[in-house]
């Protein structure tokens, strides 16, 4: 009985801390404006949608990796998958969960787009440095 109580309580806190942790990772990029190029290539104008994430991740895979954002992207990818699963499993019980999960998935997509923007800028800088050499 005690173990069951601890299990339920710890699962609830785990979920809460995980959501907040992922949000804290994404918070820094929420006010970062996307460059015109990234807006064109991703199709995101001002606000991302839940469905954009997968496409942006595919574009990120085409771009050379950056150590700085690799772990953050992995955490946000897990968060996105978790949101998708939550939406599929519980949205029919709690309908408001669908709109909440979609909003969160859109934030994940925007975060990935900002990471793409940073990767492109970083690679440009590297190329420019190589040209100078």
């Amino acid at each position, binding site marked *: 009985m005690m173990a069951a109580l601890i299990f339920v*309580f710890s699962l609830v*806190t785990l979920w809460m*801390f995980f959501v*907040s942790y992922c*949000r804290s990772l994404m*918070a820094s990029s929420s006010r970062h404006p996307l460059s015109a190029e990234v807006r064109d290539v991703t199709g995101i104008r001002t606000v991302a949608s839940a469905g954009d994430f997968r496409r942006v991740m595919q574009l990120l895979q085409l771009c050379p990796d950056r150590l700085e954002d690799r772990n953050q992207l992995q955490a946000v990818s897990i968060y996105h998958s978790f949101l998708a699963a939550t939406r599929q499993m519980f949205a029919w019980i709690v309908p408001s969960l669908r709109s909440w999960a979609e909003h969160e998935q859109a934030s994940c997509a925007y975060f990935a787009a900002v990471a793409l923007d940073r990767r492109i800028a970083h690679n440009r800088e590297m190329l420019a440095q190589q040209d100078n050499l």
Partner: protein
Amino acid sequence: MPGPIDLIIWLLGTAFELSFVVCTLARKSFLRYFFLNLYLLLSTTTTIGRFFFLSSYGQSSDQYMYFYYYSDALLTLALFVALISLYSHVFGELRAGDYVRWGAVLLLLGTAGFSYAVVVQSTARFSTRFVYELSQNLYFVGLVLTYILWGAVLKLRETRTRVVQIILSLGLYFSGYAASYALMNFSGKFSIIRYICPVLGCFLPLSWSLTILRYTDESRLVPARLVVVPR
């Protein structure tokens, strides 16, 4: 002897623990996060000690068992102190340092008293049982304290990104640990579940190191954006 997966997790965990110390030294924040560093240095020392006892006496020896449980209690105590130091960070501006310290001492004594009451009936290996019980209870108290601390962060509108992320990582660690421990009580020692705690032990120093590397003490965020259900 532990298998190759256990050894890899051990090595990774120790590397991440040392990387946090190096990161805080490089970013000149070692003293600011002194108790987190102390906990991780103690954890590294314990890992080396455990490896020594394991290779010298074997996994089922009394020496290894005693070292394991006593060092685990010491580590839990160090983590408790590290958590209290985070309380001091959050409540520092309210000049509530003394209240936090006294509260922590009372809570520790209360937990020790509760653990004593639980094991007082057992006569064989009383001290080992007490140490084990205290360690488990302190973990659960740690989870509740982290939850309260997170509430305080939101209430006091703490904006320092480093402090916020360190607390969130700790919350994830404690919740994951408590969940896997409870799951182990349900389902016996399934091979996958027994890896969860050591993997969580790697996650904590890794996420702390990344926080120190990525953000400066001046980095700020809006904590209201982090709550699960916006108010």
